[in-house]
């Protein structure tokens, strides 16, 4: 679909890249080279892959933790819910950037630690969203009907509650990914991200800072790619939300 | 006896993604001064759209007034008025009461202010005078402790009280015509009795004409003098309540009367439901819209729509059975099994 188009085009470029990534110095320099003579085209797309990988894994882990946490809180309600929500409120009170920085300092830089750091601060949104949805659904008559038919808790959760939150979750992921990409970019920009010589879109922008005045292109390309990724995911998310509503299916 | 509202051949449609929804397909009726007229119909009958079109509250687009005329007070052509002119009419000449008292009052304004708004705008009353009048009205509609309550917010009132406030707002500028769209549907039955009583009292006191839209035939029998039965955007039957309840001429009216349970009915009487469901107004049938559910349907009913047959000065029905060449029909039991 046209909505997902720009994203897919990038991927194709990635595929082409696989030839290039193993050869750091390269005869073709479509994006120019950076301060150390490395081909920027390769680095940008390679960086994009790394950024996307981080973004998607962070989002998926967010999903796992968030759904479990929010689901349990909402389903059982009462005191369980109260306690779990207080914990969330405490977590929200801590500025995420500081938390991320602390995590990375503790674990050392690298893809793995970035993903973990992002998940630790990011799961809260998903949890709240899932909790809100399930709280609403839990008292709906169709859930009550299943209970009177004799459905046990597992059946209620798996067959009734989750399929009805599914759509919302998927859509939320498509928004979490770009936000995770952006957070990673910020971290790398601050010098806390990917190890050299690996590239990520954020680290590229960081490296580009020195030569900003004369080598503007070094900053421009990664920045534009970051923007396009975020834009594409957001539009995709909007389209997906409409498509997944069974009421609009006919 | 003047005519306060004259609606002729009104046609209103909605342009939607899926196509044109013909909500009102040629509706004609009159309301005399001082009269209470009830419009009865189910969902999809077009009764609410008709009422809202009289007030020009239907957003255009997506609604389109395709044809017909609405003449108010014998010389005001509602369809052709500009928005600004219509603003003057609303609240001042024609008042409206909506169904859901929970959502039709502004939660952030005190009740007194909402009543006074219209007065300040249309009558140009000073704030103080408007406040006094608001107080008067609250007393008129039977709210105890009016002096205190006038300063309160809607959420501090119960459903029945809010509906009274709505009535006060709609009456504030002494309009000539009051349109009430399902005013008691959301209320408990003992509260409904209070509100209907109030409306009858006010009608007598203020001499206003009322159009009341409802699906409850009991409410119609209680408060209205005339009734109009609508189905799928058309008027199937209209007349005084005696004519329509005791001598109905349209199969749909028979069906409605037979399917209503009555408190005073014998325990053995059956409810005879109208089978089937109302048509989809995206694809209205070319013949009579009731043909597929009508136990007396004839061949012609599916092919063409009947014209209205005039049965008396006040009574008319649109049905092929009334055509001189149509066969006689045994109406069987009507009125919940009590033959009349």
């Amino acid at each position, binding site marked *: 679909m046209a909505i997902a188009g720009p994203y897919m085009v990038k991927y194709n470029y990635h595929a082409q890249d696989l030839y290039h990534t193993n050869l750091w110095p390269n005869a073709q320099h479509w994006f120019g080279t950076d301060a150390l003579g490395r081909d920027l085209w390769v680095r940008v797309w390679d960086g994009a892959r790394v950024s996307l990988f981080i973004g998607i894994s962070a989002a998926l882990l967010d999903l796992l933790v968030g759904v479990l946490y929010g689901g349990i809180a909402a389903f059982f309600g009462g005191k369980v819910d109260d306690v779990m929500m207080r914990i969330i409120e405490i977590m929200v009170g801590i500025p995420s950037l500081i938390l991320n920085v602390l995590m990375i300092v503790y674990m050392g830089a690298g893809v793995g630690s970035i993903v973990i750091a992002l998940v630790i601060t990011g799961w809260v949104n998903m949890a709240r969203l899932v909790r809100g949805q399930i709280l609403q659904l839990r008292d709906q008559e169709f859930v009550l009907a*299943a209970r009177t038919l*004799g459905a046990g808790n597992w059946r209620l959760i798996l067959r009734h509650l989750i*399929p*009805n939150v599914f759509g919302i979750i998927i859509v939320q992921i498509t928004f979490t990914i770009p936000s995770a990409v952006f957070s990673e970019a910020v971290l790398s920009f601050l010098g806390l991200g990917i190890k050299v010589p690996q590239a990520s879109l954020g680290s590229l922008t960081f490296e580009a800072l020195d030569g900003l005045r004369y080598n503007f292109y070094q900053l421009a390309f990664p920045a534009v790619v970051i923007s396009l990724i975020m834009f594409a995911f957001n539009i995709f998310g909007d389209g997906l939300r409409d498509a997944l509503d069974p009421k609009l299916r006919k | 006896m003047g005519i306060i509202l004259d609606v002729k051949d009104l046609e209103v449609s909605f342009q939607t993604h899926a196509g044109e929804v013909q909500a009102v397909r040629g509706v004609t009726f009159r309301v005399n001064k001082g009269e209470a007229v009830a419009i009865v119909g189910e969902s999809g009958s077009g009764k609410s759209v008709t009422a809202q079109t009289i007030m020009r509250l239907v957003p255009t687009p997506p609604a389109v007034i395709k044809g017909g005329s609405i003449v108010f007070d014998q010389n005001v052509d509602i369809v052709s008025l500009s928005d600004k002119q219509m603003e003057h009419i609303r609240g001042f000449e024609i008042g409206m009461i909506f169904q859901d008292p929970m959502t039709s009052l502004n939660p952030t304004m005190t009740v007194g202010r909402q009543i006074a708004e219209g007065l300040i705008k249309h009558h140009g009353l000073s704030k103080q005078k408007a406040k006094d009048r608001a107080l008067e009205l609250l007393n008129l509609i039977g709210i105890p402790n009016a002096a205190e309550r006038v300063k309160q917010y809607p959420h501090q009132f119960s459903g*029945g009280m809010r509906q009274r406030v709505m009535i006060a707002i709609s009456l504030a500028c002494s309009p000539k015509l009051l349109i009430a769209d399902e005013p008691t549907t959301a209320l*408990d*039955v003992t509260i409904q009795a209070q509100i209907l009583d109030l409306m009858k009292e006010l009608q007598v006191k203020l001499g206003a004409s009322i159009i009341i839209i409802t699906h409850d035939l*009991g409410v119609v*029998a209680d408060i209205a003098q005339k009734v109009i039965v609508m189905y799928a955007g058309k008027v199937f039957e209209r007349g005084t309540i005696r004519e329509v309840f005791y001598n109905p001429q349209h199969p749909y009216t028979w069906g409605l009367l037979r399917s209503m349970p009555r408190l005073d009915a014998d325990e053995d009487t059956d409810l005879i439901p*109208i089978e089937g469901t109302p048509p989809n107004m995206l694809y209205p049938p070319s013949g009579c819209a009731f043909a597929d559910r009508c136990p007396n349907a004839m061949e012609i009913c599916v092919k063409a729509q009947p014209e209205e047959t005039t049965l008396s000065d006040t009574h008319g029905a649109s049905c092929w059975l009334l055509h001189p060449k149509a066969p006689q029909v045994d109406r069987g039991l009507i009125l919940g099994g009590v033959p009349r």
Partner: protein
Amino acid sequence: MIEPILQVKNLKRHFNVGRNEVLRAVDGVTFDVQKGETLGLVGESGCGKSTTGRTIIRLYNATEGKVLFKGQDVHALNKKATKAFTRQMQMIFQDPYASLDPRMLVEDIIGEGIDIHDLYSGKQRRERIVSLLETVGLNADHANRYPHEFSGGQRQRVGIARALAIEPEFIIADEPISSLDVSIRAQVVNLLKQLQKERRLTYLFIAHDLAMVKHISDYIGVMYLGVLVEKASSNRLYERPLHPYTEALLSAIPTPDPEIERTRERIILKGEIPSPIHPPSGCRFRTRCPKAMPECAVKEPEWKEKEPDHFVACHLY
């Protein structure tokens, strides 16, 4: 004396709202239902009729009091007995739009009970579902559709089919027709009556439309703010109402008959329905009762059988 299939004894269901405030939704309700009968439960907002139904079917626990179904306390069943219970008592819900899972096919919605109790599978299951669809006036191709493709009346029929699927003996219908169009209501009520005859069902019919309740019920219980104020056979209640609230309720219902409407006597109650969180002391109806006496503010009236099979709670008796 045959034991009634359902016995409700002084049932109470309270909810905690806010700090230290208790919503006494159901505050002491006692009645019996015989097998094969229909008991109608009527009342206005806040009377607790829906909560009563839901407590009987175990969607809520009872705060106090007992519900005995076939002699067994429904709130004290072990796991196995609970499952057996759900096969015997089912519910039809009010909102045809919220009572069906929007993401499930009609076939699975109806089949859920069958699946939970492992009654049939494969071809037999399919046949059973089709037969249920036909019983409620739908047909086989409806099985493969989603709820949003149906009208309100049709969805309600799906709800009825779902309740019937596991062959219960007792069905609680919680406002099953209030959300439906007027010309559809009679269809659904007639269907319920027919099913009752064919399958010897017992109904608890909860609604606020007294005329419809009278049509379908053998007995009617009138509730106000959490308590039963009167219970009698349908005809008795209409001909000789004892409780002032019942009188007022009957009087408030407009009859679709102009002659009668214009000439009958009205009892118009003053005031609003009080909040169930702070009900009036003594008899809850006293603030609006045209016949209130000083005693009414002090003591709650007792639930008595004033005449054979005619119960009332009022100081006038």
